[in-house]
């Protein structure tokens, strides 16, 4: 050490004689503090940068003094209230043996008083320790100023509390009963101790569980803090962030698979056996009123609609305007390849939307069970159908006449 013995002594004196003032200094206090009772050797602390400022304008604690203060409070906080339980228990045993010793009858009253006092002190210490631990948990080790230090404190107190629980649960009712050797007075004292221990063990159990939760939380925070610092460094080093195009699979499994604001477009599996149910589900659940109305118009024509805005589905089976087109479409399809849109362009009714025809004819094909149709191959083209504002369906379909002919 480069400081001389004399300097250390001067520092000691300066600290001792100004302890009262130093204990109220605060590093975060911008204005500083002024005092009326500083001793002469306070100047030593200013000269050696333990504090700065002037007593006329205000004195501040420097980082050195703050670190010293932190270390002192750490040690203070860590000092256990409870003496070694094993030692205490052995000493209690000696006291009780002495009390029960018939040769020392004349000192019995005095020894009993010592036993009572010792038990009362132990109960008080355990209670105090529990309260201290509860305070530390409640303040999340507020006296330390970094996450890694909090983690260290948390680990230390978890171990200390667990050890304490182990030690005090050693004092079971059986052990204490054995210790009392059938003496009613002693048993009454020890029985009171046992009751306190049970309640303290419960409190300590709760503290251990809170410390475990805090440990998880500190670890998580610490990891996140490191992560943010590391990415910040990466950016400041001029490195690019995710300057890549992710493929479908990467996007699907990444946190970027988020549906952004915008239209929702349904792609309905037209090969599904439950197509009509799916459509009804879309209609029923869409919050967008316009879409509901649009579908309702379509559905009315194809047989599914939402009557009076209620949830009921009614299948309208009569007056189907598409019926007359069915046979013709099948015929033309099997003669030569023609798709639903081509058919509708040349043969459809002008006042009926193509989409309604498309849905109807598809449902119709699905519902038929003839050999020729079973072997027909549906070519379906899907699209996002902007004009549908949120729904959609099939762009077109055709029956593969080539395949049909081959099978036939």
């Amino acid at each position, binding site marked *: 050490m480069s400081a001389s013995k004399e300097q250390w002594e001067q520092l000691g004196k300066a600290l001792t004689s100004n302890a009262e003032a130093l204990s109220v200094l605060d590093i975060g206090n*911008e204005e500083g503090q002024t005092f009326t009772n500083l001793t002469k050797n306070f100047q030593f602390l200013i000269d050696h940068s333990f504090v700065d400022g002037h007593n006329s304008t205000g004195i501040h604690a420097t980082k050195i003094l703050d670190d010293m203060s932190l270390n002192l409070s*750490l040690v203070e906080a860590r000092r256990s209230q409870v003496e070694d339980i094993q030692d205490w228990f052995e000493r209690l045993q000696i006291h009780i043996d002495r009390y029960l010793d018939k040769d020392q009858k004349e000192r019995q009253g005095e020894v009993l008083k010592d036993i009572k006092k010792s038990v009362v002190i132990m109960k008080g210490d355990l209670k105090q320790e529990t309260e201290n631990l509860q305070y530390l948990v409640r303040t999340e080790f*507020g006296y*330390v*100023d*970094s*996450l*890694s*230090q*909090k*983690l*260290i404190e948390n*680990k*230390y107190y978890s*171990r200390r509390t667990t050890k304490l629980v182990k030690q005090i649960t050693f004092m079971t009712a059986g052990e204490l009963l054995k210790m009392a050797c059938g003496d009613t007075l002693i048993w009454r004292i020890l029985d009171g101790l046992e009751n306190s221990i049970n309640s303290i063990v419960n409190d300590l159990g709760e503290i251990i569980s809170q410390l475990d939760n805090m440990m998880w939380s500190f670890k998580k*925070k610490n*990891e*996140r*803090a*490191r*992560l*943010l*610092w*590391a*990415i*910040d460094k*990466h*950016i400041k080093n001029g*490195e690019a*962030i*995710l300057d*890549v*195009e*992710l493929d*479908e699979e990467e*996007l*699907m499994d*990444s*946190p*970027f*698979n*988020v*549906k*952004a*604001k*915008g239209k*929702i*477009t*349904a*792609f*309905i599996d037209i090969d599904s056996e439950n197509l009509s149910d*799916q459509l009804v*589900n*879309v209609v029923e*659940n*869409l*919050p967008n009123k316009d879409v509901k109305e649009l579908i309702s118009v379509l559905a009315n024509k194809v047989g599914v609609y939402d009557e009076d805005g209620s949830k009921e589905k009614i299948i309208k089976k009569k007056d189907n305007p598409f019926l007359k087109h069915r046979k013709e479409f099948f015929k033309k399809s099997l003669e030569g390849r023609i798709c639903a849109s081509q058919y509708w362009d040349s043969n459809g009714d002008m006042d009926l939307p193509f989409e309604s025809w498309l849905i109807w004819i598809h449902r119709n094909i699905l519902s038929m069970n003839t050999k020729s149709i079973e072997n027909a191959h549906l070519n379906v083209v*899907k699209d*996002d159908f902007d004009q549908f504002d949120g729904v959609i369906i099939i762009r077109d379909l055709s029956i593969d006449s080539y395949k049909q002919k081959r099978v036939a």
Partner: protein
Amino acid sequence: MPDMTDFRQVLNILQDGQMICNVTHPNEFNSLREGMEKDVENAFKPFEINLTFKYGLYYLSYANLNNKTDLTVTRDEFKKIRDDIEPVIAFLIIIMKTEVDGSPLSPGDIINYDYLLKIINSENSYQVDLENIMRIKAFSSQKTQLNNADMLNRVLDVIKDKGYICLKNKSKQIYSVTGKIRYFYEVSEFIKQHHGISTEDTIDEKEQEEMLV
């Protein structure tokens, strides 16, 4: 059946691309937790959109990206989130620096504008940080000659617009951190893995612990 007004509200929020957490939408969040999940899932199922519950948040995601439009939209969203990284990191770093123990923000944490401004004003290095942050495109402002209060206002406004904080008390300018911050940490984790960024510190915690215990 869920209450239709609540149900519609939840669908509208999700469809609007917002995330539902217990800070931004406490009622809707509780409704989802208490059984509305299934109904919402069913409502979006025909669209091949999933209701996702991750990081303490509800949001919509794609069940697949087979469709070109969905893929394009997701790629655009990816770029948007990527562009948020630098400003949000810069903001989180300055908040961590001003925290006593250097903790990063968590959902539900409170940001008090006045208090934060006081801390920034008290330390030169924080003021420099704030000035540096303002050079990031996302925070740039048409106003010139901004003081610390203006700059902090601008930063908080931008972060609020991005959904990471929400205003809890307008007159006192008290903000609450939303659940989306956890989503951001997940994105950060993805970045770390993608770029192989190391988070190892020079401090050996074990050694430090042994010294203290």
